[in-house]
Every structure is written in C-alpha cells, then in structure tokens.
C-alpha cells in the first residue's frame, strides 16, 4: 500500500470559515458573548448617529427658501441649507464682482492645465514644468485676478507667461504623442537631428523669441477691469494665500535650513534668530503685527495693501517651520554622502542640489505635506483680522438679516470643503511617496 502518490493531491479549497462573509462576521464581530454585545451596542450607536444626521441634514432639511423664516415654516428641526446655497458665490468667490467671476474660473483652469503634465508619465522635463508654474503662473494669474492697467514689466511677464504656457502645452502634446521632449520633437520635425548642437540651440532660441514677440503683441490688446483686493474673498482668497504660502515656504525653508547649518557665523546667527523668533510667536500675533503695528513705522498716509502684508507674514512664518523640517531631513543623510560628493569634486551647491537634497526631500514628504495642510487650515485666521476668507464668509451668513442666526449649516459645509481639500493633499503625498520609493527599489 503506497502512501506516497505519484501525482500531487488537488488543493483543498480554503475552509468556509475563512472565505465566506458569515465566517468573517463570526470571527471578527461575534467571536464571544462580550464581543457580540459590543458589536450590537456599536451598531446601535452608529444607527443613532447616522439616522440623526440623515434626518437633520437631509430628510427634514430645507434646500429651497428665500429666508430662514421659510426654512422654519417648512421644518423646525431640519437643517436650512437654502442659506448656504444662496451664499455659494460669496463662499467661493467672496465679494468679487459677479460678472467677473469667469476670471477666477479661468485662472483655476489655467493652473490645472499647467500642472497636468506633472501627472503624465510620458511627458518629459517635469522639473521645468514645475519651475514655470512657480515663476510665471503668479504673474498671469495676478493680472487676471486684479486687472487694471499693465505696467511695462507686467506686460513682459504676461507675454513670458503666455510663451511658457504655450511651450508647456506643446511639450505635453509632443510627450503624449511621441514620448519626446518638445525641443527634440521640433528638431526632428525640421530635419536638423544631425545639425551641430549650436545650430539646434539657435533654432530653438529663435523660435522662442518669435513666440515671445507674437505673445507680446497679442497681450497688448488685453485689458480687464480692475478689481480691488478688498473684493477678494471666500475659498478663492483662502487658496490664494495658502497657495502662495505653499509655493514659497518650501524654497524659503530650504534656504533658511542651509543657512542654519552654514559655517559662516553671521549667516548662521541671522538664520537661527529669524527661525527662533518666528517659531516662538503664534501666527495670529504675527498677523496682527503685520497689519496693525507695521503701518505705524511707515510714513503717514502710506497704506500698504493688507493682503500683501498678510501673505508676507504667512510666508515668513511657514518658511521657519519648513526650515526645521528640512533640517531634520538633512540630518538624516549620512556623512558619507557628503564625503562621497566631495571626492568626485562637487562644490557646495552641487553637493546639495545633486546629492543631498534629492535624498533628504524624499524622506521629508510626509512632514512637508503635513505643514502644507496645517498652512491651509491656518490661513482661516485671517478672518480675525478682517479679511473675508472662507471662514469669514461662512460666519457672515448668520449675520445677514434674511438668514440671521444660521451658523451651524455654513460651518458644517466649510468642514466638508476643508476635508476634501486636505484629504486630497494627503492622498497625493502618499502617491508621491510610493512613486519615489518605487524608483529606489530597482
């Protein structure tokens, strides 16, 4: 009687206990009397909460009404979303003139298009794309949002922005269709692949110059009505302040962190004191200083744009926090990396830029994004100093006479908006981490 068979016995399927839903329930929720009781209790609590929220926020809620009294007439216990719906323009765009709101929408669309290539794996030159967003987008968006007369410098920058945007889009198309960078694509199209480097460079420069000339002439005809910054508000203002803060606090933080580790005493002492002073003061104090005390030191009648003061304060404050995050990342890099870079003859800036920073920044992604999320939420403090950002607008609903006293619904709506924004930032950072560490593994 042979115990050993020549062929393999077929695999038995996993026990029902492990695969079925009931098995899972039994194992995880009802494994003992105590756990069963706990499960039932928890289910009951979940039911109470969910049904309560549903009845208040949906079943009994009023979505269409002209004022709060009509909401009450409809239902005394339900939410009154009609007020929030009436105020949507204010919540998103602030006091921006209603017939000019397309400018904000176009500005947002432009940013999305501009940054889209960063998500496309076939597109080349992502670093340049990122750099043009930071350098050029603020000018064209700034003009789009504030309008008015363009100075000569502004005209130059707008023309450059148009060229940068056009090149970016062309590069994206070249990347998607041919997997080539735009420069290589153009050279190929012109049949100059074998021409000397210098000729190739001159052709590209000439084309850029032509495009610039055309863009300059084109933008001369543009004028949009001036809109004072005092009319900016709502989610738009929140995103402007935090967007500028995010874009500039990282470079600022890197510079401060490098300064703090510098061997030059003056630079080090300056950086250390700057960082420590700003980090030991609450943001609201910095904002108050910037908006009420700062004008006292200026000549009389000199009123600096309050929005600019706030943005500067936010940038400085966050650059200091960022500096400490970056410093932590720098300290994680072993000494051997510096020494290795020196042995192959790299100087300070090349060591930092090519060897140290790329490694350090990768480790810091969770912390950096954490700071960005914090920054986005901190900007709501500007409502205290009288800017109508999204929180200011949400709170104003309860003071508007038709909606007087309506304060819960707007704040809940704001919480949902903030959750969406912060959660997507957090998801994006996870995506970045996975992508960058995948690069390390092969």
């Amino acid at each position, binding site marked *: 009687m042979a115990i050993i068979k020549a062929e393999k016995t077929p695999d038995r399927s996993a026990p029902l206990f492990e695969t079925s839903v009931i098995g899972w329930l039994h194992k995880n929720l009802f494994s003992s009397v105590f756990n069963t009781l706990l499960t039932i209790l928890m289910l009951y609590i979940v039911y109470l909460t969910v049904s309560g929220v549903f009845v208040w926020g949906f079943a009994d809620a009023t979505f269409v009404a002209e004022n*709060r009294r009509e909401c*009450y007439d409809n239902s*005394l216990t339900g939410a009154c979303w009609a007020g929030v719906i*009436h*105020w949507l*323009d*204010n919540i998103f765009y*602030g*006091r*921006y003139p*209603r017939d000019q709101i397309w400018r904000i929408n176009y500005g947002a669309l432009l940013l999305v298009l501009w940054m889209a290539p960063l998500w496309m794996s076939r597109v080349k030159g992502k670093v340049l794309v990122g750099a043009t967003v930071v350098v050029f987008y603020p000018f064209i968006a700034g003009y789009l949002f504030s309008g008015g007369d363009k100075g000569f410098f502004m005209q130059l920058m707008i023309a450059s922005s148009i060229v940068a945007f056009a090149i970016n889009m062309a590069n994206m198309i070249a990347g998607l269709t041919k997997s080539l960078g735009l420069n290589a694509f153009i050279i190929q199209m012109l049949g100059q692949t074998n021409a000397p480097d210098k000729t190739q460079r001159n052709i590209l420069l000439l084309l850029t110059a032509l495009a610039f000339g055309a863009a300059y002439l084109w933008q001369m005809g543009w004028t949009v009505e001036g809109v*004072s910054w*005092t*009319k900016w*508000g709502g989610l738009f203002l929140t995103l402007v302040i935090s967007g500028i803060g995010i874009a500039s606090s990282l470079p600022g933080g890197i510079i401060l962190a490098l300064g703090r580790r510098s061997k030059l005493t003056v630079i080090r002492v300056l950086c250390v004191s700057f960082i420590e002073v700003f980090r030991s003061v609450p943001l609201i104090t910095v904002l*108050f200083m910037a*908006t*009420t*005390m700062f*004008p*006292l030191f200026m000549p*009389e*009648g*000199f*009123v600096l744009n309050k929005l600019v003061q706030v943005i500067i304060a936010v940038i400085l404050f966050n650059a200091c926090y960022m500096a400490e995050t970056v410093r932590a990342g720098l300290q994680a890099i072993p000494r051997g990396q510096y020494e290795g870079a020196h042995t192959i003859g790299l100087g300070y800036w090349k060591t930092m830029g090519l060897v140290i920073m790329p490694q350090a920044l990768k480790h810091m992604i969770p912390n950096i994004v954490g700071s960005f999320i914090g920054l986005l939420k901190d900007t709501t403090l500007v409502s*205290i*100093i*009288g800017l*109508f950002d999204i929180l*200011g*607008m949400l*709170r*104003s609903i*309860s*003071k*508007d*006479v*038709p909606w*007087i*006293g*309506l*304060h819960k619904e707007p704040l809940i709506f704001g919480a949902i908006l903030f959750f969406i924004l912060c959660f997507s930032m957090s998801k994006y950072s996870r995506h970045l981490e996975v992508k960058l560490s995948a690069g390390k593994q092969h």
Partner: protein
Amino acid sequence: MKLSTHITALAAITTAMATGATVASAESTLEIVKERGHLRCQVGPPSPGYYNLDSDGNWYGLDVSVCQAVAAAIFGDQTKLEIQSVSSQARFTALANGESDLLSRTATWTMTRDTQLGIDFLATNFYDGQGFTVRKDSGITSAMELKGAKVCVTTGTTTELNLTDFSRQNNLNISNVTFEDYNVRDDTYLNGGCDATTGDKSSMAGNISAFPVPGDHIILPDTLSKEPLASAVRHGDNQWSDIVRWSVFALINAEELGVTQANVDDMRANSKDPNVLRMLGAEGNLNEGLGLESDWAYNIIKAVGNYGEIYEKYMGDGELGIGIPREGSLNALWTNGGLMYSPPMR
C-alpha cells in the same frame, strides 16, 4: 460695547503719540480723501442692523449708510467708498494709523476712548442699552425678578461686567454662563441651558427675530447701561470732524424737516421753507465752512434718504430690518420724545 483691552489702548496711545505730531502739519484728511478718489470707512465684522454682507457681497446697514452719506457729501457719489471690516481689537488703531478715514461702527462713546485714544467721537446715530431676553411663559416681567437665575452672556465685553455689577447691586445672585459666540449663546438659551440672555437690546431684537418662535420671547424693559453708538475720526482735523458730524446731523435734520429720498428734488425746487432751502443748498452758503459743494446735503438725502428712512430700512420693519420699534425709544426724533436732535442748520 466691547471691552477695550489694554493692548488696544496701548497700541492706540502709541499711535496717537507717533502720529499726533504729524497730523497737524500734513495735508488735511479731506484733501487726502479727494486725491485718493474714495472714502475709506471702517465697520466691523458683520453685525445685524449695523453692517452686513448680503448674498451678492454688498454691504448694507445703518452704519454703512452713514459711510455712504459722507461719501455722497464729498463726492456726490455714494459708491466712491471702500468699506473696511476691522476686528474690535484693532479698530481704534486702524483709525489712528490712517488706514481708515472714518469709523462708523458700533463703538460706544465713552470718556476714556474720546480723551485718551487720540480719536474724537462725533454724532450718535443709535442709542443702545443692555437688556435681558426671557421666555414669555416664565412670567418674568422685570429684571429684578431674575433672582438666582442663570443668564447666558458673551464673554470679554462690557456686557459681562455690567451683568455682574447689576447682580451685585441688587443682590440678585445671578450666575453667568459665558460664551464666545452669540449664536452658541442663543442656542443654549433656546435649549433651556439658561433662564435669560443678556446683550445689547438692538442685537437681541435681531436675534429673537431668528428664533424658531419669536413670539415666545420678550425683552425686559430694564436697561443696564448707556450705549451711545457714534461715529469717530482721528483727533486733530477739525474740518474733517465737521464734515462727518454735519453729515449725520443732515440725516436727522432732513427727517425733522420732512425731506425724504423721494421728495428731495421737489423740495429743493419748490419748498417755501427757508430751512429746507438752506440745507439743500438752494440758498445761503452753509457749505463753505465744510469745504464741500453747495449741494452736499442734497446729495446725502438723494443717496441714502433721511435718518427715519434708514432706521426703517435696517433697524425697523423694512425687508432687511431687524424689527426694533422706534416709537417711544431713545432713537425717536426729539419731537417724538426721543434723543435724535440736530442743532439748527443755519
């Protein structure tokens, strides 16, 4: 109304010292405003009745109308105006450092503020006072019956201090339940967390109108404090003070003389009353002392109406009003037994 904190006072005093010397020698405020092309008028974070944002992002309210009146007096155009919303902590500093030309918000005219902060209060446009709201079915008809009651109050304001004083004076043993935000205060009161709420009568009237059943609550007749709410300007520019003061007086005087937004053209052309003709600039030279055009008061009334109309629109029973009765109150015209009184314009 709000407690003037030490920091505010300190900042404002510093400012007064820093700028006091330069104000006199610099251009006059009127010149600066005319050169800039618009008036910078300071209000606070939205407050029902006084200054609010509507769903299209426009400001409206009693104090906003005063801003518009001054803009109309100077430019003949009420839209040449930038409304600044400044928090209570920074309000006097923002006026003193030149950020605002004019403060038209619910600031109580007190001696300390008038004499020590480098600002001048000019003309009261609303007489407010602290009072109590109670449930009708509680049977309470006077604040003296609030013995041992729990009273909801917003913290950090003179309201809270007045309540404590009142309780001590009358031996009422009231316990304060304090809140940061008056919406939460009202929610607590509505859910039975306290027996009464206290606050400025005007704002309480507004809040009650938003209760599920407004008829179930009443404001007690007792008044705990005097709160004359007045517009203010920087100390030291008398011409500018005159402009603002007489713009407010023009509103009150127009009501007394029966000049309204609707009939102001007709009155200027056809009235036989020399007082009306003088005020509207058809006769005499009242404008010369102010440095404005002769039709300054006409422009004011044309733009915002007289005081009675403004009151009706934002404080009274108008569509955007918060429903505070004017009859018999301090805010009635002096001819009806109130305190609204303008010196003669002649």
